[in-house]
């Protein structure tokens, strides 16, 4: 799995978004991805897998009292977006997603035949 950094013509047209921090951990059976998306309600999170591209997107929804003015803003864009390219051995059809307290957990298993097999060495 690698990150797509070059903006394709499709993404460059979109608005600026925050790049959420992620952790990516790989074990023999698949990849686990955690992404921090604070302020995104479950129904405003979007996950898409299109051929080999995984796109995470979410909108920040905060409740503001009427007439609020900002004094200091470290989170100043209204959405998150990050795009990854999945390598062939990952199975995009069997992704499991959990979303709790603004943290997304994605489990992307490897296709069965791609799981590492120990090669036995016969000593003749």
């Amino acid at each position, binding site marked *: *799995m690698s*990150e797509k950094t070059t903006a394709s013509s499709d993404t460059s047209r979109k*608005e*600026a978004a925050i790049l959420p*921090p*992620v*952790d*990516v*951990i*790989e*074990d*023999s059976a698949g990849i*686990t991805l*955690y992404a*921090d*998306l*604070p*302020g*995104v*309600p*479950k129904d405003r999170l979007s996950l898409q897998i299109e051929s080999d591209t995984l796109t995470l997107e979410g909108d*920040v*929804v*905060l*409740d*503001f*009292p*009427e*007439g*609020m*003015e*900002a*004094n*200091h*803003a*470290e*989170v*100043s*864009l*209204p959405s998150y977006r990050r795009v990854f390219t999945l390598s062939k051995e990952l199975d995009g059809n069997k992704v499991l997603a959990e979303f*709790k*307290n*603004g*943290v997304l*957990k994605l489990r992307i298993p490897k296709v069965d035949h791609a799981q590492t097999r120990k090669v036995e060495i016969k000593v003749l």
Partner: protein
Amino acid sequence: MLLYRTLFPRDVFAELERLQRDVQQSPDLSPNIRGFTRGGFPAMNVGGTPKSVEIYAFAPGVEPSSLDVQIEKGVLTISGERTHEAVPEKAAVHIDERFSGRFSRVVSLPEDADSAAAQAHYRDGVLHISIARKEAAQPRRISIH
């Protein structure tokens, strides 16, 4: 910057003031005694209305029970801990960007903030603290008879 639809309502003057503050806070000019917290965890947005001070701390993946919010002598402190998810044995960590460990961030409150009238909610990974301003400080229209 102004071309983007911004999340936080702000006017041009606030933006200019922020730029000026950023310049003033650059390391060589006037270091803050508590260090340079921009980019720290949790990220914070602070706003206000005539009636209240609103603080948003972006702290995803933290158990609300482990968050500690204290107001003492006009200084608000948000602290807690975020633990890393266990990495299984023989697993490879390819990207490791998320914060883990203990954190603490401090905000100086305006003088009219009433620390007794503070409310805190945690939703979708954001801690929202709303502190009412003292009655006397709220603008009052004086009627002319």
